């Protein structure tokens, strides 16, 4: 009877999800209510979790409850800490959820709401969650080994080295792009710049408190910090209204880029307890709070989605970024559907803290479903504003024009009506000088979130506070990615350099710290710089480059997972990882080819460089601008080279894996799994991590 009831409930959930998906896919009339999106996503996730992840856990991976995890066998209270599954879910989610699932869907909304939403849901269920879950499983069975180590052991030595290089390259591109998103959000905005600048002294204050006053009392320190941050969000308005102070905090793109580079260098070289860690604590609390508020706001306000399901820009002529729906929708969405970067977290801290093998399903598969849901909410927030406003915020001046009148005329001519005064009024309401040409996704998401929040609490009166709260929330945790990423990049460079000259590899040697910090900052700083001076707005070039590199890393992770599954004798179910790998290789290689060679100068790096070079040769560029143009040409060729090298590295790794697969399948070589030996758990079946003396 119970079983029958369960079947009836799950059939009802599946039908409800299918109905909601049908409604958002086939709606062509009145604007849809956002609840259809929530319903479609939640029901799809529930069915995917109940059925597909259960199949992966039981049939593919055969999770073993009797097997002791690394956290039990090596419990040292430092790295290996047996952790309750809900707490570890929170840890894992806080680590994987960054700006990607917010910015990616916002940018992809230029194709309309439908392609992005479908890919967010299907991509997560069939690819992203699968990758996170299986890599977590593999690392858990290998005492928490990293992706690079697993690639070296299970695929080949060269494969491991290539994976390590790919991680460093992706880190550099990621940091450059997210820094550009902050620059575009803070440009000419004294309120937002002041708020973010004040988070530095607040973090320093907390750092000293946590180190000397109350060591390790993270909760009370974070609550004090969150209170101070909310205060500076409000205080930012007073700064923006004071002509003298507003001038101090009104910065252009290059000044902001320089400030970020200096900040990240300092955060990387200074002791971690002073600046980096306290900022991370603040960011985690603000992030959790803002995501919960956004979900609650969408449920309470239930806004209508005004963006059409498909726009004319599926043909590749989009103003936010150029390129057809295939492959660029999949490249742009990135982290909300599948993110290679997650495999670094799934093979980092999480596998060392997992209490039972069965928890890997909830943490690996479940946390990625939640991240995908954050992506769907970002899509709703971006599509709930009038499409004309969305395009005015996200399009560069070189396409829509730099004045409100020119932008309104161009965008209206695309079929998205926009009055010239609308953007000026909106900018005034949110306390900004202008909202035009703010490509990067952060300002438009902040406008979307602010409208949802202000419809819940405060109305138009609080719109500006909510907008700046949303900007602060995005900028704060992007800055956390920036400083934590710079520090990790520094360690990677020291490790690589240490192979050539040993002292360089010592992480406590001050010249090594300073030189490696300078190298990593210079590397991503250059990408940031080229984004700031790019006439097409930077995001057009750099976000696809980031998407390609992130998805290439996902392909690397899935190749490692496929190799492990083959060695485990799971040939029958190998399509679970092989199909997502094939899809990722197809979209990344197509996108890489188009970004390098496409004849359209807005898509192809080389053709854009050639157009600029031809303009110099034809004497169309004024003498004063020739050096700047030559730099742009160099940047485009550099981007083409970076894309080609990344694609080539992954192709070499795939060939290495294919050789390995062939030798396993043809039985030329006995497959050797590098799992840790089986040890039976000593814990009672109902042990949940709470009975460690404190329950």
């Amino acid at each position, binding site marked *: 009877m119970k079983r029958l009831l369960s079947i009836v409930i799950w059939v009802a959930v599946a039908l409800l999800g299918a109905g909601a998906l049908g409604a958002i896919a086939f709606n062509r009339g009145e604007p849809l209510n956002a609840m259809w999106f929530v319903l479609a996503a939640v029901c799809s996730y529930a069915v995917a979790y109940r059925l597909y992840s259960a199949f992966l856990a039981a049939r593919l991976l055969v999770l073993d409850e009797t097997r002791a995890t690394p956290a039990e066998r090596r419990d040292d209270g430092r790295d290996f800490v047996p952790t309750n599954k809900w707490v570890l879910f929170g840890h894992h989610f806080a680590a994987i959820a960054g700006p990607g699932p917010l910015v990616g869907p916002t940018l992809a909304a230029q194709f309309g709401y439908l392609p992005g939403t479908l890919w967010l849901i299907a991509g997560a269920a069939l690819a992203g969650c699968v990758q996170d879950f299986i890599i977590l499983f593999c690392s858990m069975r290998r005492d928490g080994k990293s992706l690079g180590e697993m690639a070296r052991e299970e695929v080949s030595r060269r494969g491991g080295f290539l994976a390590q290089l790919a991680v460093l390259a992706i880190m550099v591109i990621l940091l450059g792009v997210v820094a550009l998103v902050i620059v575009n959000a803070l440009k000419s905005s004294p309120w937002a710049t002041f708020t973010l600048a004040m988070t530095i002294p607040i973090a320093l204050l907390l750092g000293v408190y946590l180190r000397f006053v109350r060591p390790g009392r993270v909760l009370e320190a974070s609550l004090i910090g969150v209170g101070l941050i909310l205060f500076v969000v409000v205080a930012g308005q007073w700064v923006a209204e004071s002509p003298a102070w507003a001038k101090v905090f009104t910065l252009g793109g290059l000044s902001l880029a320089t400030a970020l580079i200096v900040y990240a260098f300092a955060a990387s070289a200074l002791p971690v307890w002073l600046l980096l860690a306290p900022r991370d604590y603040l960011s985690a609390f603000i992030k959790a709070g803002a995501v919960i508020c956004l979900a609650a706001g969408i449920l309470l306000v239930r806004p209508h989605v005004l963006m059409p399901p498909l726009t004319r820009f599926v043909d590749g002529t989009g103003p936010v970024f150029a390129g057809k729906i295939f492959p660029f929708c999949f490249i742009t969405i990135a982290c909300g559907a599948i993110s290679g970067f997650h495999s670094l977290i799934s093979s980092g801290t999480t596998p060392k803290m997992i209490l039972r093998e069965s928890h890997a399903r909830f943490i690996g598969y479940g946390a990625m479903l939640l991240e995908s849901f954050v992506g769907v909410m970002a899509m709703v927030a971006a599509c709930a504003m009038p499409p004309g406003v969305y395009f005015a915020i996200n399009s560069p001046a070189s396409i829509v024009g730099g004045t409100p009148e020119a932008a309104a005329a161009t965008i209206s001519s695309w079929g998205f009506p926009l009055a010239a005064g609308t953007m000026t009024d909106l900018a005034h309401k949110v306390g900004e000088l202008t909202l035009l040409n703010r490509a990067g996704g952060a300002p438009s998401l902040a406008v979307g979130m602010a409208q949802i929040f202000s419809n819940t609490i405060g109305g138009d009166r609080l719109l500006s506070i909510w907008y700046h709260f949303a900007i602060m929330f995005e900028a704060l945790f992007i800055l956390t990615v920036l400083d934590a990423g710079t520090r990790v990049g520094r360690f990677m460079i020291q490790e690589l350099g240490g192979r050539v000259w040993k002292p360089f590899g010592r*992480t406590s040697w001050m010249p090594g710290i300073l030189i490696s910090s300078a190298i990593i900052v210079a590397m991503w700083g250059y990408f940031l710089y080229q984004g700031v001076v790019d006439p097409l707005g930077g995001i057009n070039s750099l976000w696809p480059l980031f998407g390609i590199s992130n998805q290439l890393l996902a392909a690397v992770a899935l190749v490692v997972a496929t190799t492990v599954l083959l060695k485990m004798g799971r040939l029958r179910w190998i399509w679970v990882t092989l199909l997502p790998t094939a899809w990722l290789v197809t979209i990344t290689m197509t996108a890489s080819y188009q970004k390098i060679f496409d004849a359209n100068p807005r898509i192809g790096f080389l053709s854009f460089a050639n157009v600029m070079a031809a303009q110099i040769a034809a004497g169309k560029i004024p003498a004063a601008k020739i050096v700047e143009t030559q730099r742009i040409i160099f940047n485009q060729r550099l981007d083409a080279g970076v894309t080609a090298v990344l694609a080539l590295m992954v192709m070499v790794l795939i060939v290495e894996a294919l050789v390995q697969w062939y030798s396993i399948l043809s039985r030329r070589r006995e497959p050797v799994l590098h799992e840790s030996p089986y040890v039976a758990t000593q814990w009672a079946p109902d042990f949940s991590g709470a009975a460690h003396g404190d329950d």
Partner: protein
Amino acid sequence: MRRASRITPRFLRRFWRGLRDWCGDSAYERYLRSTSAKSGASRTLTAEEFYVERLDRHYSRPNRCC
């Protein structure tokens, strides 16, 4: 009603403990209870030493994603 009054404090206690575990507030207490600290094989760290050492290790590998 009686059931609710019994369940609510338990839920709040668990939530509070989960929150402390999640943000790292109880990390030192956890360390003191760990097998290696209890075994006495190496010197037990003070709260301050443990805090700094834990952060140094935590932020030397990818821990925040895109």
